[in-house]
């Protein structure tokens, strides 16, 4: 088993591209997400017609304001001028027209709501607070556990799955099986070899997310690393298992959406109890569920080991079951 672990490590050391893919590609994707979902400080552009001077002045605190002298046709005006919202007043009341439902429109709407709040303060204002997050947390903070889990799982799954397919088609697996090594040693060596690399990846991802991108982590960073390492080990095992059903590298690529997309649904992106027909129960068969739930509890809810251990046990059991299934599956290539 140790020979396989050593071989994988030397192999990846000599293959700088795969090493780069494993270590730096997830950081690149995370950085991209940081800019897309993080605090973009976008200032919405809002056109006003026939609104009070007071309103326009206050709105300027929250948005770029264009005061119009005549009311234009909303659709044409918003589209051609790149304006996010048009607000005007007539005998029926105040109208607000937004181009489409997107994050820019949401920012424009918030700017108008904030302006109204200042101009018409109400004593019975609804004060919103979150148990586990603050109103300042952005989308990336709220979904960080999903992205960290899914991105890490994705890259490890591809690397291990493809490597196993290559072992089979390059006949190195057959050659290995024609030595006295046991099937358990092969799967063990594979899992630990790629698992170690993935563990390194997990540490790099978490440290980058926390100290580089300043992602909010309520609980312990080292617990996050532990969960990520377990997820990485399960990704290696899933990759090895799926590769058995792939007859070539192209088929392995085709398996990626089949294996990954359903798991993303159970990662916490959608609340599981809102999934109809009891389909949410499928989450128990996906390793990402255990990892992402534990990550959510640590990163968002600030829970510790005593609260998350059942999910850690779930992950370990998953790895154990996949390990045995992979050992059995190797029987296809050698009976003993």
């Amino acid at each position, binding site marked *: 088993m140790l020979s396989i672990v050593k071989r994988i490590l030397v192999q990846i050391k000599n293959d700088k591209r795969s090493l780069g893919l494993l270590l730096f590609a997830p950081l690149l994707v995370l950085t991209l997400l940081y800019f897309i979902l993080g605090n973009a400080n976008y200032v919405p552009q809002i056109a006003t017609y026939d609104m009070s001077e007071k309103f326009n002045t206050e709105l300027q605190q929250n948005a770029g304001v264009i005061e119009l002298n005549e009311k234009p046709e909303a659709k044409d005006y918003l589209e051609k001028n790149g304006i996010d919202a048009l607000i005007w007043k007539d005998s029926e009341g105040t109208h607000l027209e937004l181009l489409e439902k997107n994050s820019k429109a949401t920012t424009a709407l918030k700017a108008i709501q904030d302006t109204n709040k200042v101009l018409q303060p109400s004593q019975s204002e609804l004060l919103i607070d979150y148990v586990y997050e603050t109103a300042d947390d952005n989308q990336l903070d709220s979904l960080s556990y999903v992205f960290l889990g899914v991105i890490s799982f994705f890259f490890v799954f591809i690397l291990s799955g493809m490597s196993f397919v290559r072992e089979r088609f390059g*006949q190195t697996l*057959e050659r*290995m099986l024609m030595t*006295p090594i046991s099937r358990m040693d092969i799967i063990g060596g594979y899992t630990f070899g790629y698992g170690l690399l993935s563990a390194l990846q997990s540490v790099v991802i978490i440290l980058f997310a926390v100290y580089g991108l300043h992602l909010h982590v309520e609980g312990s960073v080292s617990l996050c690393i532990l969960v990520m390492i377990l997820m990485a080990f399960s990704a290696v095992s899933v990759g090895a298992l799926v590769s058995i059903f792939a007859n070539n590298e192209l088929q392995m690529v085709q398996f990626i959406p089949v294996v990954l997309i359903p798991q993303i649904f159970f990662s916490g992106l959608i609340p599981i109890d809102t999934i109809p027909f009891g389909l949410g129960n499928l989450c128990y068969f996906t390793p990402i569920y255990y990892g992402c739930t534990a990550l959510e509890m640590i990163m968002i809810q600030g829970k510790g080991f005593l609260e998350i251990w059942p999910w850690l046990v779930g992950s370990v059991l998953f790895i154990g079951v996949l390990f045995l299934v992979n050992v059995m599956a190797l029987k296809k290539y*050698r*009976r003993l």
Partner: protein
Amino acid sequence: MKIEVNQVDKSFKKQRVLNQINLTINSGRIFCLLGASGSGKTTLLRIMMGAIRSENGTVTIGGTKVPNRQLLAEMGYMPQNEALYEELSVWENLKFFAGLHKLKRKTFEKNAAELLQVVDMLQDKTKLVRDCSGGMKKRISLAVALIHHPKLLLLDEPTVGVDPVLRRRIWEYLKQLKSSGVTILVTTHVMDEVTQCDDAALLRNGHIIAKDTVENLIGMTPNGNIEELFFMNDQSEMEGATC
């Protein structure tokens, strides 16, 4: 190590690729399985190793029924394509497979240096396999099969793509191994290679059409060309069909 193949049949997706194969390969001999591509040579080789299961029949090696994991420690296998790790150097590939056979470091270093000398790769031992030519990979693959000094050597088309000078050197080395008691089974589709062997079996469409010592097989042909045996078999089949 004596190999005995008894009544072996094998089909893939309802297509019969091996039919009632019976073979005896005596210890310390070089045995050649000769046949065109698709004749069933590799399948038979893989059944002998225990990599795939035959539908009927048995294979025993040195009296032990295949498959047997301990038996694999005594066997060296060289697949048809190189089956090497491209991102590892020549030396690292040898070291990895030596590790699977649990070879001690000193034994490995001695064996590896000796084998790389034979296959003329000693000066390239630090080269990554991905930077080696096809012929070089073939030579490394042979060295990998021999790294643990096996008692039984199974070589699937070992000299394809190897230049004539080196081919001769490899055959000399194989004969040297034979004289030290190693049993060698070689598959080939190159007729000339047969003359290097002691015994041979001619495989066609999953049937053994002739088997004997190479000397006797040559004696059966009108012009000393073993290839003729395939044509002679063709003719007798046609005569059989017309009768």
